[in-house]
């Protein structure tokens, strides 16, 4: 608290720029769900982005329609850090129910911008308070009572913009984009922004150190969420059949896909080159995906943990009968219904081995928006090439939060539709064995229903079969089929996206992780460098089965910290099944599983504790003491 008070006094002391905190803080908007604050928060996020400052937005929301507390955090970071931060310095308090708790959670020297009548000053004396009569201002500019709830949110956007020094022109631009073509709506909303802005300008003397200043770090970048990026990937993969059942947090994958299909995939005479079916449950959704994949369509579904559990039986059929299909799993916190609106990485093991018997699946692990898009389309190529269901494992943090990203590149290769025999092929070959490994890669050739050749048909089944797809219970047929499937899976190590590595060649300790943990780890690496003077290597895994490079990476380090967002060290467990025994002992765990996105501090603290590190600052103090001691003697 002491440091905060000092900072506050500094600023109050006059126009000194000492202690100014520029483009490096978080804003926490505390509202009630169902209050329509989402578009206001989005405008605020995009305004900071429009100022050229790297930014990320995270929505912490309840599993509820209306009336429960919601927090939206915006992190502005000149260094481009977009992971969750434990603390937010600037609070926008709208929800009376949580206002006290939110105020108490502020760090010393923080800021509270709030609805005037909440009277938050009573709780703290080390925070800058800016009470705004939001309701009064809203009533004065919005005659229509029904709209006031929404418009009120724009009033705080204006006040915040003024207090943080965000250019009003940038806010205006963002609003125009948001309400493109709806002039009236724009006028009303921008009027609210201006009213908030004017009120703040006329009323407050800046008492806090937080500022947004123009930078140029967002030029050419986009803001998107992972679900929209996955949906875009599917559309650019040429998906034709989408079957799904609504479930948070994956619903918006299908919504995004459907919007784009309607936009880009209707023929000039108004016919659809796609089918989107809301199924009766997840069992039916995956059944439709496999039926469609069998009959030649590029098919997909999107779901989350409970849906994955329901899809288990069909996943085994897809694996054993060798049918392509793409399943997006946007992970949420389990077990069971768990925390439906919180993030997690705890579906990894159950997805990798989904179904009974000896079943294993290809799982792609995107960690960035670009990868959500690229793996979103690559999954379809892999599914048809390898003739198997392919899972894309995202999570709520990637999927539903707002991320800054490089623009996406158009796919550079044509669609890979895999091994499919045509009538001409059948004429040439005379016959074929559906599950015969004629190419030595474990993958047979298939035919599609409707191929007009009297040798085209085969019998697809989840029961035991020989290489001609004939029912068989013979041990040798069973073993041959299972070994071929294992070979096919082994080959997939080289076909799936390989890991990415940040390596300096000196570090004995190393990080290993996947997916959304990336942001906290990379920020953590910088913090470790600053605080402990140590460089740590890092590898991000991007698919299962694991590429050989992952084995090599573990082999080249002494201690490998597997960072993941689940209780049971699922990634480390999966690695242990894959690595030689001599390497397994090197694995350490850093686990984070409270439902919130991983933050850098957690990574740093855990790493430092397990490594027994002493901070550079502590070392310097020690150094001084030793020196003084020397003088004294």
């Amino acid at each position, binding site marked *: 608290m002491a440091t905060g008070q000092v900072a506050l006094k500094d600023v109050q002391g006059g126009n000194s720029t000492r202690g100014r905190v520029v483009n490096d803080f978080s804003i926490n908007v505390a509202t009630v769900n169902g209050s329509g604050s989402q578009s206001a928060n989005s405008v605020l996020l995009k305004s900071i982005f429009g100022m050229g400052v790297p930014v990320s937005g995270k929505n912490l929301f309840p599993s509820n329609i209306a009336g429960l507390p919601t927090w939206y955090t915006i992190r502005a970071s000149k260094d481009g850090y977009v992971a969750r931060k434990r603390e937010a310095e600037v609070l926008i308090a709208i929800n009376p129910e949580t206002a006290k708790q939110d105020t108490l959670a502020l760090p010393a020297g923080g800021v509270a911008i709030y609805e005037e009548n909440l009277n938050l000053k009573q709780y703290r004396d080390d925070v800058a308070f800016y009470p705004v009569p939001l309701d009064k201002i809203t009533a004065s500019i919005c005659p229509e009572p029904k709209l006031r709830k929404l418009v009120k949110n724009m009033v705080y956007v204006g006040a915040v913009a003024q207090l943080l020094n965000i250019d009003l022109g940038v806010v205006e631009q963002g609003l125009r984009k948001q309400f493109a073509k709806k002039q009236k709506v724009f006028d009303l909303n921008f009027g609210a922004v201006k009213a908030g802005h004017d009120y703040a300008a006329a009323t407050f003397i800046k008492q806090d150190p937080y500022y947004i200043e123009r930078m140029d770090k967002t030029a050419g970048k*986009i803001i998107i969420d992972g679900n929209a990026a996955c949906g875009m990937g599917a*559309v650019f993969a040429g998906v034709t059949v989408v079957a799904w059942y609504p479930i948070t947090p994956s619903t918006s994958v299908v919504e995004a896909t459907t919007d784009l299909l309607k936009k880009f995939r209707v023929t000039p005479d108004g016919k659809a080159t796609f089918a989107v079916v809301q199924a*009766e449950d997840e069992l039916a959704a995956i059944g439709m995906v496999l039926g*469609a994949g069998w009959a030649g*369509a590029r098919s997909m579904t999107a779901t989350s943990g409970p849906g994955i559990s329901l899809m288990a039986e069909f996943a085994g*059929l897809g694996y054993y009968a060798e049918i392509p299909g793409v399943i997006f799993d946007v992970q949420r916190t389990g077990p069971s219904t768990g925390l439906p609106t919180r993030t997690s990485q705890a579906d990894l093991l159950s997805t990798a081995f989904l179904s009974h018997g000896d079943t294993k699946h290809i799982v792609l692990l995107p960690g960035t928006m670009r990868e959500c898009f690229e793996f979103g389309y690559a999954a379809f190529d892999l599914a048809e090439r390898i003739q198997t269901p392919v899972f894309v494992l995202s999570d709520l943090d990637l999927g539903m939060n707002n991320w800054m990203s490089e623009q996406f590149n158009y796919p550079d290769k044509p669609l890979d539709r895999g091994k499919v025999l045509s009538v001409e092929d059948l004429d040439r070959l005379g016959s074929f064995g559906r599950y015969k490994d004629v190419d030595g890669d474990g993958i047979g050739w298939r035919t*599609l229903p409707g191929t007009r050749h009297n040798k085209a048909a085969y019998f697809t089944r989840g029961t035991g079969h020989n290489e001609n797809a004939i029912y068989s219970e013979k041990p040798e047929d069973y073993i041959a089929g299972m070994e071929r499937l294992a070979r096919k899976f082994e080959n997939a190590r080289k076909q799936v996206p390989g890991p990415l590595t940040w390596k300096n060649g000196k570090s004995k300790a190393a990080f290993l992780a996947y997916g959304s943990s990336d942001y906290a780890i990379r920020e953590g690496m910088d913090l470790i460098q600053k605080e402990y003077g140590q460089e740590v290597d890092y590898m991000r895994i991007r698919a299962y089965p694991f590429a050989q490079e992952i084995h090599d990476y573990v082999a080249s380090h002494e201690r490998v910290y597997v960072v993941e967002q689940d209780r049971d060290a699922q990634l480390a467990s999966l690695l242990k099944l894959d690595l030689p025994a001599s390497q397994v002992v090197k694995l350490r765990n850093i686990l984070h599983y409270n439902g919130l996105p991983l933050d850098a501090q957690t990574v740093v603290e855990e790493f430092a504790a397990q490594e027994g590190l002493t901070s550079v600052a502590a070392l310097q103090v020690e150094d001084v003491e030793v020196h003084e001691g020397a003088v004294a003697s």
Partner: protein
Amino acid sequence: MATAAPAPKLNHIGLPVLEYRGGKTTLCAGCGHNAISERIIDAMFQMGVEPERVMKMSGIGCSSKSPAYFMSRSHSFNSVHGRMPSVSTGAILANHTMTTIGVSGDGDTASIGMGQFVHLLRRNLPMIYIIEDNGVYGLTKGQFSATADIGSKLKTGVVNDLPAIDTCALAIQLGATFVGRSFSGDKKQLLSMLKAAIAHKGTVMLDVISPCVTFNDHEGSTKSYKFMQDNDEPINEVDFVASFDEIEVDYESGEVFEVEMHDGSNLRLRKLREEDYDPTNKSNAVRTLMEAQANEEILTGVFYINTQKPTFIDLLNLVDRPLGQLPESLTRPPKSALDSLMASLQ
């Protein structure tokens, strides 16, 4: 050449019936399912359906094995228990130009598969859905299924104390557009119904009583050959005249309910009961079935038909070409599409 075998009879697309046969059945001798497979072969042959244009779908159980025993030249998908409807839905979405025939059982449909079954009906998915209905689980040695009549007896003497689910009444209520019941032992009726089913556009739901000779063909069973021979009560006589058939019989007006199918063929339902039975009247059809169940009558025949209702494929407004066979030029949007999306997100 007196010694030469006579040339096999060919259908109107030039194929002998042999080309509609399947593998050798592994079901019990006398199983009703084998007779149904035979009728499917006859119907497909007589209708001149190209075998390569047929998808055979099934779930799990004795019934679901049977697609292996007819039409080897057709692609087939034996899926998982109770889930044939969803797999069929996906396959039909991928290629709606195919004739799709699904074979299920009473367990596969009315117990484990009920959830998917009702949604298939609701969507009026264009396919023929046959329940080979014997009232018992055969592969697990004779437990009651949900279509077993109340009071019917297992071989072990166990009496069924739950009411049967009437899959026909359900199908009519939920949206199937061609609903009937038949008996595996009634060759003529079943063949006519199957031929009409092939001509129909929409969900055809046929509940075919198909006695299980091993577990449910004894005294006290209401799904035995004997019971069906004694109690089968046809509601109408089914006669199907394909568009390419020459019309042989003319009925007196008022004697027959004639339905024109969308391919130009005719379904003729000759009245067998005193009161007029109108197979296009949904609520009357359901009432008739409920009354029959209360009276312990086993009605057979075509209960309901609607040739006008749009199918699921119509509702989705799909292109004519199968979705599964569209070229990349029609499925992957151009670079300009991605560019415009990127611009809108900046």
